[in-house]
């Protein structure tokens, strides 16, 4: 069994994964994505790996590297399909709706005029998100028409074209917290509450982590969400609605777990490596690539 870990920066998570691999005596290479040059007609250098664990920080690099590797027949965690779906909130939401996974209302519009009309019909507040983005960047909670007009105009004029694909999400009045659940294969292995006074609760933005019990209901919806985007190892963001219960907000594909090992008591890195080894051995076959 020969692994590769493809990474951009050795963050806390990558260092923990390297330590875990070292402790288990697993043969692996660390590959910095800045050093890569894929010769598309020459896959031999990569086919020596039974599986590649992707830990890139750049979505674009991750996506293209996984696409090339999967097209070469090299198993990866996650797959290019999962990265492609999770890397785009619009595509993620479409996949969730297609699979019937409960989610907040999402409306997509292509012009500021159509977006404003939609927002007025949905009622305030609404959330406007860039289709591609992470760590809570550039999320806008729009409370009134004045704000809507200003944000839409700024996005159209100051942003690159993809900021004019308007992803408008219903605002869920969550209880000052959301849930980040960690799904590995067909199991929700752990979950945390992310609590904050601010409506953005990402731990990257200061949200505080505490353990969230994985109930059968939470496990079921999170596994369904993960499989809807292609499966693998995912971080599922869950909102709690007073009437509708759990709603899936987003799904992430290169999970950060530094705040969640001690909080949950779950050995997340070893469970990740167990899954990666199972993919390398060909024991996991339900991943779409």
């Amino acid at each position, binding site marked *: 069994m020969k692994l590769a870990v493809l990474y951009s920066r050795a963050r806390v998570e*990558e*260092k923990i994964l390297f330590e875990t691999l070292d402790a288990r005596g697993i043969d692996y290479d660390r590959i*910095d994505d800045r050093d890569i040059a894929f010769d598309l007609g020459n896959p031999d250098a990569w086919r020596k790996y039974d599986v590649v664990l992707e830990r890139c920080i750049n979505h674009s690099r991750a996506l293209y590297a996984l696409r090339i590797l999967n097209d070469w027949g090299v198993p990866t965690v996650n797959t290019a399909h999962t990265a492609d779906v999770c890397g785009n909130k619009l595509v993620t939401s479409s996949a969730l709706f297609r699979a019937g996974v409960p989610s907040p209302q999402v409306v997509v519009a292509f012009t500021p005029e159509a977006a404003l009309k939609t927002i007025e019909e949905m009622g305030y507040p609404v959330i406007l998100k860039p289709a591609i*983005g992470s760590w809570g960047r550039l999320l806008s909670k729009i409370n009134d028409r004045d704000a809507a007009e200003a944000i839409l105009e700024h996005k159209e004029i100051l942003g690159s074209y993809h900021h004019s694909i308007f992803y408008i999400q219903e605002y869920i009045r969550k209880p000052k917290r959301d849930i980040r659940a960690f799904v590995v294969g067909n199991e929700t292995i752990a979950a945390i509450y992310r609590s904050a006074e601010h409506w953005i609760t990402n731990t990257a933005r200061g949200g505080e982590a505490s353990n969230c019990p994985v109930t059968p209901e939470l496990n079921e919806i999170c596994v369904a969400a993960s499989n809807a985007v292609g499966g693998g190892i995912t971080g599922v963001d869950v909102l709690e609605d007073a009437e509708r219960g759990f709603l899936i907000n987003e799904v992430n594909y290169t999970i950060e777990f530094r705040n969640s090992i001690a909080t949950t008591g779950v050995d997340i890195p070893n469970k990740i490596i167990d899954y990666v080894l199972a993919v390398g051995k060909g024991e996991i076959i339900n991943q779409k690539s």
Partner: protein
Amino acid sequence: MNTAECPECGGAISFQSAPIRGEIISCPDCGAELEVVNENPLELDLAPQEEEDWGE
């Protein structure tokens, strides 16, 4: 020797364990975010700024 000089302020930086290429640290003197760009010899540079498609 796991020590290096901060490229921003010249302060001394020491590592508790072996540095890993791509590892991000903060200079204890000036607070600059630094990246290990080479392990042997140990070299540090200012860490790149967050880009639009960075994330999970």
